[in-house]
Structures are given as structure tokens and as C-alpha cells.
């Protein structure tokens, strides 16, 4: 059926009234409820919602990657056109390359499934195979892009990396995230050990204090912290929390502690206390008990906490925006934010999208590789604690 735009243009008021934002949400909700009630087995609607959502997410991600490979001119086009042009089915070379890429993705999934179904041991050959297939798939994607005109990725990424300084920001981000995650992991493990395995007066109220501080909104902390740190300067060490990578590491670590202790407390409680008591009888002090017994035993929970904190800090930009003003010390998200702000004047969209990919790839890879640990640790530690 062909829609004549003129017919609809005569009734815009009616459409607007029906599709008024809030009635729209109400209609949508009612529609979904009716659909579910009508679909007695739930399965069809379940898969429809799931597929819609998954498809939308994948398309958005693909679109970002494609946009980072084209020119500004390609970008200004309608996105669906960019997608169509990228997956140009008239071009056999492109299609072959895409097929290879898809096969590689399938191979990675197949290896993951095989890995999940076999007993443990020898995982590394699977990981190596997945890495190889991933590299091959990426190569095929880039080759396909070469055949359909999206071959500007090299200059886009180089421009993002050098002129937009994403390379420098990457170093800052890596230093700050790794530093603060290391600090958090060690300190929170120590604190959680003391709060769950040692006995001392006021232990529970201290744990409650940490947990209660989770209710403090960021906005409450940000203003006074900024005012405090702005005037605080250690002249002897030439150290200030403003414009300092080390300062930001400490701020992130301190602010992430309550959540991490909260996450780990359930996990530590599930570790048997008898081990510590046996160690005490054998003459171990608290430090030996902690470093030899509980710290290694808590490794799965600590991994989860570390990954969560890493992703959070890697993506954090609010505190970095306030506490870092020196352009040499900016982190990736802050650099990207300034790129967005200045984009409105200079059309460098492909470089901006290359920056998004640069920012996203590390967290995505970490999640992809470690997702089983993340989910296992999370359900074990916090949810069922």
C-alpha cells in the first residue's frame, strides 16, 4: 500500500492528539498488556520484544561502527541509507567479505558454546581460536568496507587518535582506572574481611554506616568536595587533588569503597569462618589469615567487583570534568564530551564516532571475555548473599 504524504498532512492535529506524548505512553502500555494477556503462551510476544530490543541495539552499534569508517558526507545521509550503502547487496566483493565476517562471528559463538559444554581445562586454545576468528572477522569487515567506499576509517581513527588527542586521553584513562581499581580491590577486601570475619565492638554499626552512605547522591558530594579540594594543596609535595591523576585515583577509590564493601560483604559471609579460626589456632595473625586464606578465596568476588568498578570508572566523566581542567590530563569520556560540545561548530562526526568506538572497545572486550565471572560473582555475592 502506498502512503500519500498529502493525505496525512491534512490531519496532523488528529495524529498529534492521538500520539500526544503521554497518551502515547499510556496507549503503548495498554497495547503491550493486551498483547500479553491475549498471547496465552507468552512465548511469541516474549521473543518479539526480545528480538525488537536486541535488533535495535545491534543496529545502533553497527551504525556507530559504520559511521566511524565513512566521510562526513556519508554521515549526513539518512542512517538507513548509510546502512544500505554499507551492506550493498549489488556489490559481490562486499557481500563476500560480509559473509566471511558473519561466519567468523558464528565461529566465535560456536567455540563459546563448545567451551561451555566441555569439562574445564584447555580453555586457552579456545580463546586463541576466538581471538584469531575475531581478527579475521575484523579484517573481512574492513576489506568489505574498502569495496563499498567506507574506507576512510584509517584517517578517521588517526585523526581521533592524534588531533582529537584520544591517544593521550587513553593513557590517562588507563592509568586512572587501573590505579583506582587496584586500590579499591585491596582496600575493600581488607575492610570487608575486618567487617565480616573479625569481632570487635561497633562492627555492625560501621558496616551499616558504609551501606547507608550509598544513599548519598553524587550531587551532594560533588560541590563541597570541589570547594574543599580547590583550596587544599600540599606545598612540600607540590600535590593537589585538582588536576592530578593521582588525586583523581584517590577520589574514585574513596567514593567506590562503600559500594564495593557492600558487594563483597555477602561474598565474604559465604566463606566459612572455620578457616580463619583454624588458622588462628595454628598461630596465624590477622594479616596472614587475610593474605593467605581469605584474599585468595575471595578472588571470584573480587574479580567481579574489580570489573564493575573498572567499567564504572572507565566511563565516569562527571568528577573528571570537575576535577581535571588541564587538557593534558583529561580522560577519554571527558575528551569525548568536549569533542561533542565542539562538534556543533566543526563537523568532525566520523572522528567523533571513531572516538566512541575507541572508548567502547576496552569495556566491551572485558565484558565479553569475563562475563561468566561477572555474573557468577554478582549472583553469588550481592543478590543471594
Amino acid at each position, binding site marked *: 500500500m502506498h*502512503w500519500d504524504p498529502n*493525505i496525512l498532512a491534512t490531519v496532523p492535529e488528529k*495524529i498529534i492528539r492521538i500520539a*500526544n506524548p503521554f497518551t*502515547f*505512553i499510556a496507549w503503548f*502500555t495498554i497495547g*503491550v498488556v493486551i498483547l500479553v494477556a491475549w498471547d496465552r*503462551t*507468552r512465548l511469541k510476544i*516474549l521473543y518479539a*520484544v*526480545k528480538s525488537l*530490543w*536486541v535488533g535495535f*541495539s545491534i543496529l*545502533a*552499534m553497527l*551504525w*556507530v561502527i559504520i559511521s566511524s569508517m565513512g566521510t562526513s558526507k556519508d554521515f*549526513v*545521509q539518512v*542512517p*538507513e541509507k548509510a546502512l544500505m550503502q554499507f551492506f550493498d547487496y549489488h556489490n559481490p566483493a562486499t557481500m563476500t567479505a560480509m559473509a566471511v565476517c558473519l561466519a567468523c562471528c558464528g565461529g566465535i*559463538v560456536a567455540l*563459546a558454546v563448545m567451551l561451555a559444554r566441555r569439562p574445564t581445562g584447555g580453555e586457552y586454545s579456545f580463546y586463541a581460536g576466538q581471538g584469531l576468528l575475531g581478527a579475521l572477522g575484523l579484517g573481512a569487515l574492513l576489506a568489505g568496507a574498502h569495496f563499498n567506499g567506507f574506507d576512510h576509517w584509517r584517517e578517521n581513527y588517526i585523526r581521533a587518535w592524534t588531533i582529537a588527542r584520544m591517544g593521550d586521553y587513553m593513557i590517562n584513562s588507563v592509568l586512572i582506572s587501573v590505579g583506582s581499581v587496584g586500590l579499591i580491590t585491596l*582496600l575493600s577486601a*581488607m*575492610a570487608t574481611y*575486618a567487617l565480616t570475619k573479625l*569481632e*570487635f*565492638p561497633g562492627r555492625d554499626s560501621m558496616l551499616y*554506616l558504609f551501606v*547507608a552512605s*550509598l*544513599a*548519598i547522591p553524587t*550531587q*551532594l558530594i560533588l*560541590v*563541597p568536595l570541589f570547594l574543599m579540594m580547590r583550596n587544599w594543596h600540599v606545598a612540600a609535595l607540590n600535590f593537589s587533588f585538582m588536576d592530578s591523576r593521582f588525586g583523581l585515583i*584517590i577520589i574514585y577509590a*574513596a567514593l567506590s*569503597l562503600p559500594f564495593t564493601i557492600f558487594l563483597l560483604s555477602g561474598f565474604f559471609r559465604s566463606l566459612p569462618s572455620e578457616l580463619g579460626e583454624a588458622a588462628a589456632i595454628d598461630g596465624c595473625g*590477622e594479616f596472614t589469615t*587475610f593474605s593467605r586464606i581469605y584474599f585468595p578465596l575471595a578472588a571470584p568476588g573480587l574479580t567481579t567487583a574489580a570489573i564493575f568498578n573498572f567499567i564504572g570508572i572507565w*566511563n565516569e566523566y562527571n568528577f573528571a570534568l570537575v576535577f581535571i581542567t588541564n587538557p593534558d590530563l583529561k580522560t577519554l*569520556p571527558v575528551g569525548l564530551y568536549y569533542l561533542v560540545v565542539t562538534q556543533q561548530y566543526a563537523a568532525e562526526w566520523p572522528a*567523533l564516532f571513531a572516538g*566512541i568506538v575507541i*572508548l*567502547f572497545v576496552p*569495556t566491551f572486550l572485558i*565484558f565479553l571475555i569475563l*562475563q561468566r565471572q561477572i*555474573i557468577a560473582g*554478582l549472583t553469588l555475592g550481592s*543478590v*543471594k548473599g
Partner: protein
Amino acid sequence: MPRRNALKEWSAAAPFLAPNFLGFLLFTLMPVGVSMVLSFYQYDNITPAKFVGTANYHRLIVDPKFWASLANTLIMMLGLPLTMFGALLLALALNSKVYGRIALRTIYYLPSISPLIAVAVVWMWIYNADQGIFNSALARIGIRGPNWLGDISWAKPAFIFMGIWSGIGGFTMLLYLAALQDIPRSYYEAAHLDGAGAWQRFWYITWPLLGPVNFFIIVMGIIGGFQAFDWQYVMTGGGPAGSTTTIGLYIYNNAFSYSKMGYASAVAWVLFIIIFALTLLQWRMRQRFGGAAQYE
């Protein structure tokens, strides 16, 4: 174990807790105290702070912009039921035997591991008035879509929709999944023997047993909703005409754009009290639910 004296116990625990407590004191407790004091002062960053008593709080009560931002924040939470619904559907899908669960789970997590700034930029282009995905799709069926983020009546729904997309996967879904996996299979088998259909099994077994986790998700969603700030800051800056200014953004703007540090602190304290009350409510209810203490 024989009880040792308190001093000895303290000296054993102190080395483990000292660095943590120092950080907590310096970066959490002290800022909270400073913020409390600051909320009774007028301070513009340049001239010395002036004590004004409760004037900041008096001003807050009659400040239409404060109430508007509170209303905006509440309205933008309206997507929560749909988020929960979608998350439950995804969890049900993951709970049943589906091929490619590992790949699916990765995609489910995409919004929650994506950098906020990247999500914001992508959605700015999805909502773009001329070339955005939505409007080019609408143009196909002859509807000229609104300028989503630039239209007073559409900007809030745009954020609601984005929130649903982002909230469906990730932690909400995971909580549902954990709760679903806790339901003993024997309940379903018994119901199946009694001739209950899939819909009845869901409605009479699954749904009631999800009560505690539902409550937890609602409260956490409201607490998170009150802190909404980042998307609005990057995507609209609170506009158009202040229609997407949340409380968090209002505090940030007052502090860092208008240099009203005292007033910003007063608003932040109101936000804190709201969130703290909600947290207390959640704790109380969790104790009432008895066995639901597992969702801590």
C-alpha cells in the same frame, strides 16, 4: 571462642579499616558536613561566604524552577513499569532454554556497560530531527516526526524511551533472572499436574514469588531516577525551556554555572533526604518481607 577485650579486638581490626575509614571520612562524611554548613550560607565562589540562616531553604520553597525540576524528575521516571516489564520478559527468555544465550546476554548488557557519553551521542543522532533513525522511519509512512529533543512536549518522552532501552537489560534483568531461578521447579511440576496452563503458572506461581524483587527494583529505580543527570546534561543541557532539567542537573547548574554554591547545597540536601527516606522505606519493607533479605 573466648571473648577477648575490646581494645585488643580493635587493635586487630584497625589496620584493615583505617585506610578505608580515612577515605570515607575525607571524601564522604566531610563533604556531607560541609554541604550541610554550606546550605546555610550564601557563597558565589568569589566573595567570602555569608551566613544567611535558612534563607536558602525558604527560597527553595517558593522557587518555581525547583518544583519544575522535581516534577520533571518524577515524570521522567514514568518508564519504570515498562522497564520492569521488559526486563522480566528478557529474564524469562534467558531462563528458558534458548540457543545463543551467551551471545544474547552480551547484547542485553550492552546498554549498561556502554559509556554514558557514547550512549548519549548515539541517541542524539537517533532523535535528530532531520536525519535521525526515528524521523526517517516515520517519514516513510508520511509522518513528519517531531524534533524529539528540541520540543517541549517530546523531550521528556524521548528520555523515558531511552531509559527503557537502557534499563531493560543489565542489573534489573539479572535480578529477575536470579529470582526466577530461585523458584523451585517442583511448584511448576505440581501446577502442571493439576492442569494449569503456562499463563496460569506464571500468574499464580511466578508473579507472587517475584513480589520482593519487584519491590526492590521499584525502589532502586526511583532512587536512581531521582539522581538522573548525565543524559540530560550532555544531550539537552536541561532544555528546551528547562523541560528536561532534573533535580541533579538543577543542582549542578546552580553550583557550576550560576555559582550559587549555598543554594545548590540546600537543593542537594532536599534530594538527599528524599533518597534517604526511600532507602529507609526499602529496608523496613525488606524486614517485613522476611525471607526476602536475600536481595540485599
